[in-house]
């Protein structure tokens, strides 16, 4: 447990608070010292821990894969190359099965999504106190109050991270929709379905209804994509924190939950990837 003088509520809140750097109405650009301060910063704040870990893990992923890609040989693959090729083939198969159009973007996009999210998720398996404590020590070394050094290790438990990705995917959905069907086709898809009649007057009446339904469907995609990943990981992290609070008995509990969590981690990364492929393939398909 981090700091024995904390109440459990404080402990949990401490763990769920991001390290925030932003524009405080009174303090200007500064590090937030408390949850309230972070809240007061509003939109003009950035979660330093989320950014650091996600970018770090993304760079790690790309570094490893680039390493293999550079010396990729057609001979007998060994070690890392084997692994990378397995991943690439797995993603390629998934894309081929679902996405029937032709796109140079979609397969690498899926690979990036899967590997990056998987790496970000897997940070969940690092004991919850380990890295935050380290951060507190380092913070204290730089003269900050350890109690106010917040550090959240798993980027996917930050809704900003997941929403950032899902909104990018959303932008791609819209881009592909418009590119395949044209702007008018895209608008028609939003307004002339699911209710359509041959009567022009009735159709005009139906347009707002259709638009409402289709907009909800459309907007539900990025939101559900982001919140599914965020919710799963946040809940998992929360349970890790709760387990970590019970002291000596945490080990027998921690282990099965971690094992179970391996499944969730992989599954969520896979689901995010698959849904991205499905959404994009829906966007590139012609009118149903």
């Amino acid at each position, binding site marked *: 447990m981090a700091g024995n003088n904390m109440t459990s509520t404080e402990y949990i809140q401490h763990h769920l608070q991001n390290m*925030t750097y*932003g524009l405080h109405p009174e303090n200007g650009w500064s590090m937030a010292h408390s949850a309230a301060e972070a809240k007061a910063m509003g939109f003009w704040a950035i979660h330093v821990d989320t950014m650091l870990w*996600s970018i770090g893990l993304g760079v790690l992923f790309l570094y490893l894969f680039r390493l293999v*890609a550079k010396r*990729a040989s057609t001979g007998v693959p060994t070690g890392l190359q084997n692994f990378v090729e397995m991943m690439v083939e797995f993603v390629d198969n998934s894309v081929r099965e679902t996405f029937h159009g032709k796109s140079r973007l979609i*397969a*690498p996009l899926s690979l990036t999504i899967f590997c990056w999210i998987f790496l970000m998720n897997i940070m969940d398996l690092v004991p919850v106190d380990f890295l935050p404590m380290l951060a507190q020590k380092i913070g204290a070394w730089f003269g900050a109050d350890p109690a106010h050094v917040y550090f959240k290790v798993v980027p996917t438990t930050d809704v900003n991270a997941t929403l950032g990705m899902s909104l*990018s995917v959303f932008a791609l959905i819209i881009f592909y929709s418009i590119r395949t069907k044209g702007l008018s086709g895209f608008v028609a898809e939003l307004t002339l379905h699911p209710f359509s009649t041959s009567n022009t007057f009735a159709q005009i009446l139906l347009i707002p209804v259709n638009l409402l339904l289709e907009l909800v469907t459309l907007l539900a995609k990025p939101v559900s994509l982001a919140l599914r990943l965020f919710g799963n990981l946040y809940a998992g992290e929360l349970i890790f924190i709760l387990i970590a609070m019970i002291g000596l008995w945490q080990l027998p509990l921690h282990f099965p939950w971690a094992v179970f969590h391996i499944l969730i981690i992989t599954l969520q990364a896979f689901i995010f990837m698959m849904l991205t492929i499905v959404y994009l393939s829906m966007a590139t398909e012609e009118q149903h």
Partner: protein
Amino acid sequence: MNLNLTLIGQAIAFAVFVWFCMKYVWPPVMQALQERQKKIADGLDAASRATRDLELAQEKAEETLRESKEQAQQILEQANKRANQIVEEARDNARAEGERIIESARSEIDQEINRAKEELRAQVSLLAVAGAERILESSIDEAKHRELVDKLAAEL
């Protein structure tokens, strides 16, 4: 869960990662995979071709072996025939030679016999004359009676 700039930062980072992956990671790995696939396919092809070649070669070798055996058999037969022929010829020659030798010996013997007969004839006439001379004790005209005796001797 307060939404803030992190969202945009994440979106940018995501876009950059995807771009990098699309540009520098996916194509080489994919290319290597496809090339390996092609190589393996080629290898399998070559292997099956080699097996077929091997079968053909084996067949050909068997064929050649069979042919050479046949040839050897033929040569052997010819040689045997030739040998028999030679033996036969030699035997014929020998027989002919023998007959010739026998023939010449026989004619020689005949000649000898004739000569002996001549000699005997000559001596018989002499003996007869001498005997007659003794018997008659009288002088007989040798020239006159010789003719008679010679005639007699020729009848022997």
